């Protein structure tokens, strides 16, 4: 990503951000509420237009990639489903649009352990099941990069552990994960490197052990950099 700015009225949500993700790693994208995390991901994934600059991913705008759903899978909100549609039909519609064989739907349902609930309407799903259904849709194209906005929000401890294991396994296959979060304890256990943003700027990035002295926890680093203000 390079030279990106996003304004909402007079508020600059993103100001000139560039970052690189290494294959085989999980990167945590951290920042206070309102720091611009979600805005950056939406602009990166083509859901929102930058006010200036261009958001590039794999060297092009997301919409200019040849087969975008097979390069990047993304979940930017945890509840983007029609309540009256079954989980399976949600996935089938996504697969049809991306021209992914429908047999893949059963595979991703098995991956996120939703097979038994697949034919129920989404309105009967728990929050954890919705998070996993969103993840299943992102996985349909078997992408190289997963982009997840606050994927652990609302998950119970078993769900958090399931997600962590899943993301570690995904990265272990040589693929890449970018997760935004404000749950520091969870991030510290899941990610290889972090990128911390505040008021639209990257204020720190790197491997956890390189960011501070050994005595500093991620929470110390984070609160130092973001001045610990409650927002």
């Amino acid at each position, binding site marked *: 990503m390079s030279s990106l700015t996003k304004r909402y009225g007079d508020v600059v949500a993103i100001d000139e951000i560039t970052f690189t993700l290494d294959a085989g790693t999980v990167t945590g994208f951290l920042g206070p509420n309102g720091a611009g995390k979600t805005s950056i991901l*939406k602009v990166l*994934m*083509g*859901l*929102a*237009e930058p006010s200036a600059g261009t958001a590039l991913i794999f060297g092009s705008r*997301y*919409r200019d*990639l040849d087969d*975008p*759903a097979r390069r990047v899978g*993304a979940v*930017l*909100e945890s*509840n*983007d*489903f*029609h*309540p*009256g*549609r*079954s989980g399976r*039909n*949600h996935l*089938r*519609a*996504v697969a*049809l*649009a*991306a*021209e992914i064989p429908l047999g893949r739907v059963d595979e991703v349902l098995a991956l996120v352990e939703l097979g038994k609930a697949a034919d129920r309407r989404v309105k009967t799903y728990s929050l954890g099941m919705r998070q996993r259904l*969103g993840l299943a*849709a*992102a996985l*349909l*194209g078997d992408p190289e990069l997963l982009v997840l906005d606050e994927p652990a929000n609302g998950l119970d401890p078993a769900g958090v552990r399931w997600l962590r294991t899943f993301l570690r396994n995904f990265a272990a296959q040589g693929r890449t994960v970018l997760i935004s979060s404000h749950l520091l304890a969870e991030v510290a256990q899941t990610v290889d490197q972090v990128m911390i943003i505040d008021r639209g700027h990257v204020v720190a990035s790197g491997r956890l052990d390189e960011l501070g002295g050994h005595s500093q926890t991620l929470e110390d680093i984070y609160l130092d950099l973001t001045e610990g203000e409650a927002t």
Partner: protein
Amino acid sequence: MIGQLRAELLKQRSTQTVLALLAGMFGLVGLAIALHVLTPAASELATRSDQLPAFEVGTRVGMLFAALVGALAITAEFRYGTIRPTFLVTPRRTPVITAKLTASGLTGLVFGLVATGLMAGAVTVAFAARGIDNHLTSSDYLRLLAGGMAAAALWATIGVGVGALFRNQVSTLVGICAWLLLVEHLIPSDVARYTPGNAGLALAIQATHTQLAPSVSTLAVGALALPLYAAAASVIGWRTSLHRDAV
């Protein structure tokens, strides 16, 4: 584009929205049959000019519900946030909007056929049962079905365009209902001849020498005007969808 079209058709089939609209349309056509075919005295239905207005109501109801199908195809995505997964999997938005217009147009054809077919059947059976001479010609019936289907399909694309512009589901649906059921009736007839609803009626009904004549134009005017409205609404919906934030 074929993939997006199949996805849009699956989205229509995989919730109960379209079935609920179809049920609502049945109800409204039934009411129209009661009011325009069963209730009037036989003397009020003596001539072809008296008999054609029943077809008007069937056509208008078909257009209305087809427009609601189109409007819901896009506003439901904004209401439930599914527009995000939709645009994530197809980030070039033109194929998404084209597929919505096409899928809604196809479903609109079916709605038009059902509404006008029900009305045509009811008129035929009711007139026979009541011993009223049926002065409607086979070309009246044919034009009702073909014109009613075309008008409904075009109105479905108007629904998509209006929905893409306003995004808000309630205001879009209320706006479409108000326009077709109320506003067009308030417009002076020399102007109303060219409104999209009355242009749709002109496709389905020959209005010369009937009580419809003041506000319903000729087939030629309808066949020119309604596709222009549909094209304009489609282009507006497409253009406004291209770059607006899907947040």
